[in-house]
């Protein structure tokens, strides 16, 4: 089916919606709504709305639309590219869309699916799944939801939602519109792979429910969008080919694509995702391993072997460069309790961090195989840390996230004396056969300029975050030039300028590296079909057309 008809939503009285008016009032009493983890700060937002439900949300949209006031949607504001920082107009926070609606077993696909409001956080979702206790479902008066929930609780297995972005306070809706990924993307793919349905409120105040597998692009690459007044708009999907890497730059497109995939990763510029259906998988015991290595090149070579060996199924494959380990050693020396791990071995000059299934009752032959592969690369499996108890896995996870936090705190300290300084963190991915190329490129260029830098992240997906820590404005500018150079190389090698952070307001210059003006114009055509007046998330993905 290529045609989708939007439905009229019930509409509440606009006057009853919780609101704060005036930039100064927002800045004084609600400043957190003016910024996000990108640290970009809005200087021009005149209204803050906190609708309690979809009816109130629609009332806000229609009222703002009538006055041509653009709106920026905010979830948990954990994004790194300023997506939820309003360029102008109004902010609409979805924080009251925080209910888990149901848990049901999809008989066709033999999987459990959770339906939840856009603001439910990944962290709370993880905790509820772990304990199998969902406060909203405990209180439900819907008999069928109750039955299904009881069936879920009676299921002997426990379940998890695979996507695991580092920032687990992210909202489910936010993670969908950014197609968030994380370490486990290596095995399970990004958020897109787990979304089974979306409810989207459009800029015209109507909504569409999009289950996965119902609406597909025609052979000509089009969808028909029809509103309740019968007006038809034809949407032509872009004809560019996306890189075969992780990619969070630009709209998704593919021949015969599912409409749901257009909204996933669209950065919220096409509609407002209010409700999400996601699939769950059985939770299995895991073992995490930090393998220390002789140097970074050994890590790159070992990565290639580990991911090409089909007998080993790693959930994630992460990287710490030698200079990243040195930074952690410094933290360990100054505040051992912050690191909460044994001393990093003196011999360690690089490290890989991976996780795979673990069965306490079996021989774990796959671990023996892993041991052999590590030895074949000249590394020593005795020079490693392993964890499989739940609390140990948690300790390792905290350690894994410690490095970006350390980088952020160093930059925050430096900003006190040089306010214009900021972190430079790359988010580039390249195809498998260019991992060694891009690593060499990173290392040679950063070292040539004698910059302070560390590298870490998703090496299994050839997606290493190079973080440059500038000590002066001159170094900041050198770093910015390097970033541009790295992005050009990544594109040259068939990669993506943003693998997971998205484009938002601060990486639009990179979009032009990856896409031609014609291709960007195709994206803008898609935007115009859903949001002809460019009122949703102005300034995200494309330059702002409506702000003064």
């Amino acid at each position, binding site marked *: 089916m290529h045609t989708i008809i939007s439905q009229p939503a019930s509409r509440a009285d606009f006057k009853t919606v919780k609101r704060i008016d005036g930039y100064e009032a927002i800045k004084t009493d609600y400043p957190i709504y003016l910024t996000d983890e990108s640290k970009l700060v809005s200087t021009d937002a005149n209204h803050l709305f906190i609708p309690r439900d979809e009816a109130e949300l629609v009332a806000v949209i229609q009222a703002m639309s009538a006055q041509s006031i653009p709106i920026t949607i905010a979830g948990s504001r954990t994004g790194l590219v300023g997506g939820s920082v309003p360029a102008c107009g109004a902010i609409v926070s979805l924080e009251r869309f925080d209910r888990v609606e149901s848990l049901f077993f999809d008989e066709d696909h033999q999987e459990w699916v959770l339906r939840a409001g856009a603001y439910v956080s990944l962290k709370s979702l993880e905790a509820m799944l*772990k304990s199998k206790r969902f406060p909203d479902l405990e209180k439900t008066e819907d008999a069928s939801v109750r039955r299904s929930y009881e069936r879920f*609780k009676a299921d002997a297995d*426990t379940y998890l939602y695979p996507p695991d972005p580092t920032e687990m306070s992210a909202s489910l809706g936010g993670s969908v519109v950014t197609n968030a990924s994380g370490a486990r993307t290596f095995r399970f793919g990004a958020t897109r792979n787990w979304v089974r349905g979306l409810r989207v409120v459009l800029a015209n105040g109507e909504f569409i429910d999009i289950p996965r597998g119902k609406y597909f692009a025609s052979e000509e690459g089009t969808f028909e969008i029809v509103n309740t007044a019968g007006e038809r708009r034809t949407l032509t999907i872009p004809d560019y080919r996306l890189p075969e890497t992780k990619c969070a730059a630009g709209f998704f497109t593919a021949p015969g694509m599912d409409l749901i995939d257009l909204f996933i990763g669209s950065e919220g510029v096409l509609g407002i995702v209010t409700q999400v259906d996601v699939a769950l998988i059985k939770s299995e015991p895991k073992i995490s391993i930090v393998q220390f290595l002789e140097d970074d090149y050994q890590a790159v070579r070992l990565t290639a072997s580990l991911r090409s060996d089909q007998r080993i199924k790693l959930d994630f494959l992460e990287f710490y460069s030698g200079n990243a380990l040195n930074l952690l050693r410094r933290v360990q020396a100054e505040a051992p309790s912050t690191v*909460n791990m044994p001393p990093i071995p003196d011999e360690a000059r690089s490290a890989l961090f991976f996780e795979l299934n673990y069965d*306490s009752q079996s*021989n774990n032959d796959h*671990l*023996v195989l892993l*041991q052999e592969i590590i030895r074949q690369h000249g590394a020593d499996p005795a020079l*490693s840390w392993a964890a499989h108890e739940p609390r140990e896995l948690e300790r390792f996870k905290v350690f894994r996230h410690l490095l970006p936090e350390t980088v952020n705190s160093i930059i925050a300290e430096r900003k006190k004396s040089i306010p214009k300084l900021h972190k430079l963190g790359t988010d580039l991915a390249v195809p498998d056969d260019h991992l060694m190329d891009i690593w060499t490129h990173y290392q040679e260029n950063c070292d040539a300029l004698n910059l302070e830098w560390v590298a870490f992240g998703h090496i299994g997906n050839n997606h290493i975050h190079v973080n440059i820590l500038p000590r002066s404005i001159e170094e900041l500018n050198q770093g910015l030039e390097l970033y541009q150079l790295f992005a050009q190389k990544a594109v040259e090698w068939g990669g993506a300028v943003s693998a997971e952070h998205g484009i938002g307001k601060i990486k639009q210059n990179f979009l032009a590296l990856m896409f031609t003006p014609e291709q960007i114009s195709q994206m803008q055509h898609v935007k115009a079909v859903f949001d002809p007046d460019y009122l949703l998330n102005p300034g995200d993905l494309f330059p702002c057309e409506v702000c003064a």
Partner: protein
Amino acid sequence: MKKIVVCVKQVPEVTDVQVDPTTGTLLREGVQSILNPFCEYALDHAARIKQADADIEVIAICMGPPQAEDALRRCLELGADRAILLTDRKFAGADTWATAYTLAEVIRQLIPDFTLILAGKQAIDGDTAQVGPEIAEILGLPQITYGTNVNLTADGRRVQVKREAEHGIEVLDAALPALVTITKGETQRRAPSLDAVIDAHRKNIEIITAGDLSLDEEKLGLKGSYTQVVKVFPPPTKKDSRVLKDLEPAEAAREIFSFLKENHFLENNRSGAK
């Protein structure tokens, strides 16, 4: 060869445990089991002492259901040479005294030539801190509790222990054999290597049942317990608490401020701040 016995317990990961307010039973869905952290510290000290003296064997002993093998497996990963699991329905329902009796008898009968017994100061599920001292009493050993560091003297005849006391740190020593219970102190939890995990899986865990030993069955399990847990319940919530609902943040903050001020909670802080 000197033998250090480490008594360990498998416990639920208590940060996750909730009690059903109606039935008073533990809600165990999703709650996993771990090696009791204080037992792990005890094992760490044993492994450290062994590192300096190759002529030491570290033996971990655990009483529990069959799945307590996992806790022993972790002991092997962290440096134990042998692991013994005492598992039998006859041991079920044991209080601290029956547990101590069983562990003491196992040590007396299977490892009569032990040099030192280490135990965690308490298990994080029961929090009694009784089993270690009771084993020492049953075996007639000198005991030092709340140890944070343990070393054997050069002549191998005494144990020297740093222990936490209310007024500071005490350094005590005792003639061997002796029993020491261990608390966290400055121990940084270790992490076994991949090699150690694989090697631990290759080692055998010795299973001992009641029939393998000469035991007085009247002293085992529930039958041998002087105490019984009648009911478990969460601490009652304070009735006079007040939740501020449906208020604007600024309004809620004003309410809280007024409350603190009216009840004189702010006065000390203010003088302290000067």
